[in-house]
């Protein structure tokens, strides 16, 4: 397994790499500069020496005076050599110089610097001649000796730096480690937290660079806390709300067991069944709501709201007919919205079901789907008792039920409806029904472009 990249290692590598890089560049520049200066200086010496020889020759040297070899005066002398030719004939040379001219110049003269190989080693040679071109002088110097000087200069100036590099690395490692201490502290604090601990992390003296990360982390903890709290509240609410239907089922079953009369027994048994149905519906609604609140993504596709409304009204019509209510649907043509067909059907069913339940016998319930001004509108009016403004404000709170209603609703229908609307990015508006006097519910969906 490959170890994850270490921030500390990275920093260390960068710092040391940069130091080494700067050092290399410095060394290179020094090298170039020193070599240039050195070459200038030594070439100057060569030229100077050559000039001396030319001048000396001009003043006349006794050609027969004991041969052409100059004496060797110092042990470093072999690193330099010279030749003086007079009219093509070697008249003077250093003892280590060859008899042949260092640079072939038969006939003419040579002038200037050359780097040539003599005896297998590179030499720097300066050639010059007298004014009458009868004197040709060569002064040579081993290139090797120049290199030695160059190296010595570099060694003394850059050597200590090379020695300091490991020390520098050690110091950098320590410094980086010190700098990283708050990060390790946060890591330790996080590692030691229990999964339940969701309070914000407070690290003493956390550097400003870490503040965004800590803030983001604390914000995340905050969101998780909220989510857990809402989950906990939901579970508590659900357990609480299930107690009453269960208590009713239990009481009715016990009444049935203890009933002396057949009629009483039957009544209690029917009530028991009714209680079971109610508990089932409550559980289903709780599950629906929990799924809606889990924030799962819902695939929104093109749905014909009118077709959905027809289907739902057909399903719930028997309920209305049982109460001698009139239920009407006005939805001609196709009214396409973007949505989740299943959820939208649940929403319409909840709304229509509420209208039927809470409206008295003989009431009128009207559902209409229409498109105008770029909005597909679902409007539901009933002639029921409506709602007080205070109740309208509270409707949709989980388990909120309108006081005094004889219906044994769970108070979850509106929560579900609101959540479904939210999933579709629309809102449910409720008001007093202008046409029928009861409750009016309106949901507006934006028209899909191109439909």
């Amino acid at each position: 397994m490959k170890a994850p990249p270490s921030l500390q290692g990275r920093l260390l590598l960068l710092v040391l790499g940069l130091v080494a890089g700067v050092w290399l560049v410095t060394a290179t520049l020094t090298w170039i500069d020193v070599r240039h200066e050195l070459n200038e200086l030594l070439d100057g010496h060569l030229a100077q020496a050559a000039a001396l020889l030319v001048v000396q020759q001009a003043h006349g040297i006794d050609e027969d005076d004991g041969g052409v070899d100059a004496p060797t005066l110092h042990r470093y002398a072999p690193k330099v050599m010279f030749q003086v030719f007079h009219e093509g004939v070697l008249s003077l040379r250093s003892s280590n110089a060859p008899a042949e001219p260092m640079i072939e110049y038969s006939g003419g003269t040579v002038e200037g610097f050359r780097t040539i190989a003599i005896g297998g080693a590179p030499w720097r040679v300066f050639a010059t001649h007298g004014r009458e071109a009868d004197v040709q002088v060569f002064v040579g110097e081993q290139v090797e000796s120049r290199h030695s000087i160059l190296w010595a200069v570099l060694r003394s100036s850059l050597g200590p730096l090379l020695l300091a590099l490991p020390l520098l690395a050690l110091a950098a490692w320590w410094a980086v480690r010190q700098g990283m201490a708050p990060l390790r502290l946060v890591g330790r604090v996080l590692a030691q937290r229990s999964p339940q601990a969701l309070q914000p992390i407070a690290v003493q003296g956390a550097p400003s660079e870490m503040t965004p990360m800590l803030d983001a982390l604390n914000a995340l903890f905050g969101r998780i806390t909220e989510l857990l709290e809402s989950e906990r509240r939901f579970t508590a609410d659900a357990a609480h709300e299930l107690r009453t239907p269960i208590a009713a089922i239990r009481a009715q079953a016990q009444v049935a067991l203890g009933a002396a009369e057949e009629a009483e027994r039957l009544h209690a048994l029917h009530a028991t069944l009714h209680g079971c149905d109610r508990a089932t519906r409550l559980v289903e609604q709780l599950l629906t709501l929990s799924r809606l609140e889990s924030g799962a993504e819902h695939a929104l596709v093109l749905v014909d709201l009118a077709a959905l409304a027809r289907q739902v009204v057909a399903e719930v019509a028997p309920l209305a007919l049982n109460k001698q209510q009139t239920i009407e649907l006005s939805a001609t043509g196709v009214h396409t919205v973007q949505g989740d067909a299943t959820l939208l059907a649940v929403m319409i069913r909840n709304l229509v079901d509420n209208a039927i339940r809470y409206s008295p016998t003989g009431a009128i319930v009207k559902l209409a789907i229409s498109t105008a001004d770029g909005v597909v509108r679902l409007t539901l009016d009933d002639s029921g008792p409506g709602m007080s403004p205070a109740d309208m404000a509270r409707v949709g709170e989980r388990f909120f039920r309108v006081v005094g209603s004889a219906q044994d609703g769970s108070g979850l229908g509106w929560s579900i409806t609101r959540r479904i609307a939210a999933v579709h990015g629309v809102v449910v508006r409720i008001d007093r029904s202008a046409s029928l006097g009861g409750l009016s519910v309106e949901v507006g969906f934006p028209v899909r472009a191109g439909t």
Partner: protein
Amino acid sequence: MRILLAEDDPLLGDGLRAGLRQLGFLVDWVRNGDAAERELRAQSYSAAVLDLGLPLKDGMDVLASIRRTGITLPVLVLTARDAVPDRIRGLDAGADDYIVKPVDLNELAARLRALVRRSHGQPQERLTAQDVVLDPAARSVTQDGAAVTLTAREFDLLHALMLNTGRVLSRDQLEQHLYSWGQEVESNAIEVHIHYLRRKLGNALIRTVRGVGYMVANEAATDASKAE
């Protein structure tokens, strides 16, 4: 025993009323906090079963309100709120007992009987006066160890009198113990039931206090003060 049941859930209220009736209680059922408070102020109940999550006025508020005005009847809180702080709050607000839903009807009845008994200063489950023993749980009466068969009304009447042994109960008070809403009270019903009770248990047990009402005394009355 006549009790007030305050429960907003139709199915549960119906079941509790039917179940408690089967167990010999007279039950008046209200569905919101306002009605519960109104009835508790207007009528004399032996006890009340109070749901906390009532519409219009929360059960806890009803409880605090009646306690403030000195109504001391035993109140049993029946609720879905099961957290310990809720229980403590309920008991502190003046509840005498606290039951979390769902509840067994027999347990509910037993707790109500115990509450009523204690509220009358009776430590024993069975009530004794002279040679008569009344068992509220079994709804049975014995005299000198021999079982005496009573009708439901006669039993309730005797129960009310024996709970208040040594105290005079007016005809109105007795009627309130005997009849729940909607039950028609015949004008001389109490006299008729007393008459039958005396026939079954003898004249010594129940005394008439002229112009006031009736009472059961612990000691048999002397001949001189014997009832008519």
